[in-house]
């Protein structure tokens, strides 16, 4: 097999939008799953799912660090098999969900294989929505109040800028993944800028530099290459620096975000904050 990028390269939004429109016209004749409830197709779909989807959605479709839990009864972008077929075929503009065959990973799926995957997802999803956990209203108060989340994170246009924007996170990641990110922020750094042709997105790494005049700056990397770094410090100041002019350059995978241990943020309060993020992300 030749060269498959291990992380997908989301294509241009315009191209995706065009594809969505084009495919909507083409696929209308074929919007019924020919394998609905066929256990053999579900098994084939499980293997296809592992190969094509598990990178983000996890081996059992329970969601990974990057993609939503597809065993949830309700899905944000699809309400029926036909819509799911469209989403798998064409991706979701504005998200990291790529169009079939464009993620640089593998050859993509035939229509038949996509239907098999849908059959598999239907076979493992819950039949009723999970009982909501937490108090979203209280979570919102905490987010913008004493939990200090909004000092660094923006939700729905309001908040700080040094951390990842979180408006969509409740819809694109599992509850467990969000809790894990709060309790262990360094375990899986969030993705930042994704460039069209570059294999790996920039991550929220912590950068500490000492400039030529001896000033120490600590912040998150907005982007970096071998010769320059673009970073933002906790006061949201952007620095554009040449590495060869720095006295020192240190990069760390220890996140700037503090570890929210249970004695800093109780399980209940965290549930409330996650409930708030999920309520926003579902919109």
């Amino acid at each position, binding site marked *: 097999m030749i*060269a*498959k990028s291990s992380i997908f390269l989301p294509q241009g939004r315009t191209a995706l939008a065009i594809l969505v429109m084009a495919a909507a016209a083409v696929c209308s004749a074929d919007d019924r799953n020919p394998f609905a409830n066929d256990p053999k197709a579900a098994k084939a779909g499980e293997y296809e799912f592992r190969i094509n989807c*598990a990178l983000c959605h996890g081996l059992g479709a329970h969601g990974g660090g990057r993609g939503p839990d597809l065993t949830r009864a309700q899905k944000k972008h699809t309400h029926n098999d036909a819509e799911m077929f469209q989403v798998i075929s064409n991706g979701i503009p504005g998200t990291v969900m790529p169009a079939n065959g464009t993620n640089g*990973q593998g050859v*993509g799926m035939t229509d038949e294989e996509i239907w098999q995957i849908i059959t598999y997802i239907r076979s493992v999803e819950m039949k009723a929505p999970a009982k909501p956990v937490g108090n979203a209203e209280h979570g919102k108060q905490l987010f913008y109040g004493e939990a200090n989340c909004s000092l660094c994170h923006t939700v729905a246009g309001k908040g700080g800028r040094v951390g990842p924007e979180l408006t969509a996170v409740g819809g694109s990641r599992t509850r467990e993944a969000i809790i894990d990110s709060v309790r262990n922020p360094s375990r899986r750094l969030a993705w930042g800028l994704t*460039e069209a042709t*570059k294999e790996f997105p920039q991550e929220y790494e912590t950068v500490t530099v000492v400039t030529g005049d001896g000033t120490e700056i600590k912040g998150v990397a907005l982007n970096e*290459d071998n010769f320059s770094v673009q970073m933002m410090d906790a006061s949201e100041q952007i620095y554009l620096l040449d590495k060869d002019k720095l006295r020192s350059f240190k990069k760390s995978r220890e996140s700037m975000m503090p570890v929210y241990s249970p004695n800093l943020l109780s399980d209940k309060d965290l549930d409330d904050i996650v409930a708030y993020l999920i309520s926003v992300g579902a919109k």
Partner: protein
Amino acid sequence: MNLRWDRESLYRGGSGGSGERPRRSPRALLVLFGVYVAFLLTLHAYAQVTVERIVNSQKEPQNWLTYSGDYSGRRFSTLDQVNTTTVHTLAAKWVYQTGATGKIETSPLVVDGVLYATAQDDRAFALDARTGRPIWMYQYPVPTDIRPCCGHVNRGLAILGDKVFMGTLDAHVIALDAKTGNLVWNVTSADYRAGYSYTVAPLAVKNLIVIGVSGGEYGIRGFIDAYDAATGERKWRFYTVPGPGEAGHETWEGDSWKIGGAPAWNTGTYDPATNQIFWPTGNPSPSNRGEGRAGDNLYSNTLLALDADTGKMNWHFQFTKHDEHDWDATQVPVMIDAGSKHLIAQANRNGFFYVIDRSTGKLILANAYGKVTWSDTRDAEGRPVAKKEASPTLEGHTVCPGALGTTNFMAPAYNPKTALFYVTARDQCDIFSTAPQPYEAGHAYYGSAYFPSEEAEPYRGYLKAIDPLTGAIQWKFEHTSPTWSGVLSTAGGLVFTGDAEGNFVAINALTGMPLWHFQMGGAVYAPPMAFAIDGKEYVAIAAGSALYAFALP
């Protein structure tokens, strides 16, 4: 004067038929014109790329006549105008935008001032190599229903005589007129609907165009073909999976040989002294599951020594037996002569750097040059052997290197002045989890899922300089993230490479220190090469969707 008028005057036999001057016979004029043109053609016959010119390519360092620059595969230029002292003034001279999207993996050719290259979607073009201005452009009609595994990529052309040659994504081989881009011949090698395709730059050897097929993720039966450069007639085919009655057939369980994979999708090398082609092969199919194809699975992941005239195998060396991790051994095999030793070296996707005696095919050394967890023992020949527990499992477990390998298709370089081998490498481990699939023609056939373990170490990318006589790593240059760029080395004491962040970088070939860089605005998936025109050295590389050329001011 426009062409139409010119032609009309010719056929009318004179100055436009005004009648004032005496008329010559039109036929006599045509004959005269024909003689004149024939005379001109003989004058310019020397400009054709003969096989002798390729064999003696060191006599014309201003040109770049094969994928790797010459037959040895070393991607080394003897030009030294751009060197460790002057490189700091290197500047972009021109940029050619291909207009295509996706990864551009091409390695251009340059012959007497004209640059020939390919772009995504099977485009080929010729440029004025001084200015980047196009002379011709050819777009192959790619079928809409092809599903190549890894993008609509193409790694370049071969040139011989007055033609350039390209393999296409639907498994055709075509010849184009080098002066016009006009199609001369077009032959079908295999059915693309069953997963066969070409992405490789062919190799011109004698009067033959040698090419290896892609499709290891579809359960193809791999082959290396040779076509008559003049006519496109197939002269030989070497099946990389032996059929019944052929040696090696017993290394396949049951009928698994029929869909055994072993593609040959990167350009091999040629030794004129022994008339042997050295061509490497890729993974057995399914790529990530050994069940159902018990045995060594010859000649997957193998270096083949083939007689150039007949395609008959002289010897073979299999790097990874019974591969279950997609570790195609398709990396360019580089011929190195050290004293009386005739060696061939390959930095393999499985994480080991191999040196083989190219007269006998015997292994001389195999050293890990990246993070390797799949093997900790050797067989009697010294070949690394896979641990049982490295096989993919249903739950998935981590193996290093990952499926993308320690290196992949990135062209390496060998510099005879530093006696170092330069290769792009990455440390990335993957989780391999079985996903058995039935074979269906034209459908993906992996047998396993694999994806990077996010909680493992971050993936690291390097340029590594290896001493091929010992396998020791002399220096390494760390990239910000892993790159797919190839490597060029020059007599100017430099190594050129690109990175995922879009930089083109010149590095001191002895020390690994970066000396110069230029931001090209798109990630690099291609190797650099060098040429010269009117005494000026150029270095060229593709990035993003464009081709860049650099020279001193």
